[in-house]
C-alpha cells in the first residue's frame, strides 16, 4: 500500500470501518512509513480535539428574547395588514391601476412641458406692450439694420414713403418708452423723419413747437427725439412740423409693430434707411388723456 492510499483511509481507520484485511494493510504501511505515522498521529489528535470540543451552553435569556422577537414580529405583521390596505389587493387589480396611474403621469408631464409656454411673455402681453418684443422680432430688426447699413445705395433707387420704423424702434432709447409704457395705453406708434439743413435751428424750432402744442420732449438722443403730445393737437403739430423741415415735407409712417417680422416691414425699413436721413415718431395713445408719443428723427441734408 502506498502513502496516498494509506492516508485516504485515515478516517475509515479511525472510525473502525475498515475490513480486517484493509486495516492490516494500512497499519503495516504506517509502521514502515514514519511520515505517514506522524500524519496519522496528527489526524488522531485533530479528531480527539474535535470530539472533545463539547457544546456551548445556550444563553439564559434565549427563550424570553425569542418571545419578545415573536411579539414584535406579530405587531409589525398586524400593522402591515391593517395599514397596508393597498398591499393586500390582488395583483390582477393592482397592476392595471398602477399602469393607468403611470400613463396619467406621463400625459400630465407632456402637457405641462409641451402645451404650456416655458417662460417668456404671453402673446397678449407682448401685443399690449410697446417695448417688449420677441427675441425673433428683435433679431430680425437687428439684421435689417445691418443690411441697411451695408447697402444704402442699392435701396436709394426705390424712394417710397417710409411707413415702418422697426429698426429705429428697436434702437430707440428704450428708457423713454419705458417711462411712458406705464402711463399710456399703446396704439400703433407714429414716426416722423425730418430733413434739415441747420440742426440747432431745427432742434430749437422743434422744442418750441412741442411746447406750443402743450407737449413735452420725453427723451433726446442725438438727432432722435421722443415727444409726447395731446392727441387733439397732434394733427396741427404735424402740419407745423413741415415748417421745420428744410425740404418742406416730412416722411411719416405708422409702425406696424405687430408685423415686425414681415418682409415688407423690413423692406420699408431698408428703404427709409437709404434716404439716410429721417426722423421718426412714435405715438402712443392713452386711454385716459389721449396723448400721442411721436418719435422724430432729424436728418442732416
Amino acid at each position, binding site marked *: 500500500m502506498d502513502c496516498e492510499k494509506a492516508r485516504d483511509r485515515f*478516517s475509515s481507520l479511525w472510525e473502525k470501518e475498515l475490513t480486517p484485511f484493509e486495516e492490516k494493510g494500512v497499519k503495516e504501511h504506517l509502521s514502515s512509513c514514519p511520515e505517514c505515522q506522524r500524519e496519522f498521529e*496528527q*489526524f488522531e489528535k*485533530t479528531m480527539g*480535539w474535535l470530539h472533545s*470540543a463539547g457544546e*456551548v451552553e445556550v444563553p439564559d435569556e*434565549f427563550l424570553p428574547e425569542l418571545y419578545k422577537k415573536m411579539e414584535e414580529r406579530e405587531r409589525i405583521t398586524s400593522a402591515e395588514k391593517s395599514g397596508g390596505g393597498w398591499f393586500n389587493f390582488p395583483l390582477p387589480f393592482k397592476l392595471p391601476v398602477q399602469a393607468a396611474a403611470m400613463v396619467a403621469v406621463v400625459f400630465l408631464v407632456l402637457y405641462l412641458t409641451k402645451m404650456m409656454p416655458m417662460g417668456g411673455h404671453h402673446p397678449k402681453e407682448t401685443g399690449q406692450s410697446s417695448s417688449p418684443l420677441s427675441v425673433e422680432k428683435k433679431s430680425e430688426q437687428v439684421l435689417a439694420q445691418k443690411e441697411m447699413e451695408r447697402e444704402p445705395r442699392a435701396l436709394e433707387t426705390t424712394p417710397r414713403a417710409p411707413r415702418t420704423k422697426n429698426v429705429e424702434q428697436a434702437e430707440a432709447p428704450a428708457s423713454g418708452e419705458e417711462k411712458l409704457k406705464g402711463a399710456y395705453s399703446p396704439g400703433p406708434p407714429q414716426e416722423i423723419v425730418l430733413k434739415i439743413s441747420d440742426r440747432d435751428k431745427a432742434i430749437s424750432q422743434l422744442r418750441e413747437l412741442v411746447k406750443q402744442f402743450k407737449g413735452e420732449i420725453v427723451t433726446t438722443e442725438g438727432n432722435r427725439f421722443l415727444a409726447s403730445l395731446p392727441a387733439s393737437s397732434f394733427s396741427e403739430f404735424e402740419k407745423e412740423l413741415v415748417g421745420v423741415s428744410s425740404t418742406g415735407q416730412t416722411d411719416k409712417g405708422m409702425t406696424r409693430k405687430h408685423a415686425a417680422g414681415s418682409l415688407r416691414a423690413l423692406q420699408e425699413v431698408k428703404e427709409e434707411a437709404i434716404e439716410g436721413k429721417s426722423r421718426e415718431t412714435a405715438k402712443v395713445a392713452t386711454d385716459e388723456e389721449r396723448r400721442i408719443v411721436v418719435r422724430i428723427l432729424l436728418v442732416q441734408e
Partner: protein
Amino acid sequence: MKTSPKIQREVIESCKAGDEKAFAEIVLHSQKKVFNIAYRMLGNLEEAKDLAQEVFISVFDSIKDLREEIRFDAWLTQITLNHCRNRWKYLKRRQYFNSDSLDDPVETEDGDVPRDICDPSDNPETLYEKKMIRQLIQRGLQKLKEDQKELLVLRDLQGFSYEEMGELLGLPEGTIKSKLHRARMDLKQVLERATH
C-alpha cells in the same frame, strides 16, 4: 445522534394546533442543538443566538406544514442549516469573515480572549485545556469551506449518522464519507499550522 431523545409526537401536534406551551417545550428541547450548530457555523455567539431564534420563529410559522412528526429533528436541522447558509452568505457579503485569522482574539462563552496558540494537549490543566481546544477548533473551522464545516459540525460535533447526513444534504453516503475525510484532513493541516 448524541442529542437528547426525540421530542414526543403529542408535543409537536399540540404545537401545530397553536399551543404556546408545546412550542416552548420544543424550544427548550432543541435549543442547544440549534444554537451549537449555529455557533460552530458562524463562530460568533451573538450571531448564533440571533440565528437560533430566527430558526424557532420559522418553526413556529411552518410547523403546521410538517406532515411526518417523526421526522421533526431532521426537519429542524434542515431549517437550521438553511438559515446558517443564508446568514453565512449575508455575512460574507459584508466582509464579516475577512479579518478572520487564527491570531485574532477568539470568542468563547467567556467573551473574547486573546489568541494564545499552543498545543492544548501539552497543558496539564484540564479545564484550561478544554477551553483551548474549543478555541482552536472554532478558529480552525472558520478557515474551512462552508460545506466542509457543515460536514464536520454534523458528524464530529453533533454526532449525526451518515444516513441522516445523506438525507439532510441530499448526497450518497460514499460521497459524504470522502468529503468528510477531505474536510478532516484540511482541518488537521490548519491546526498543525496554527500550533507550530
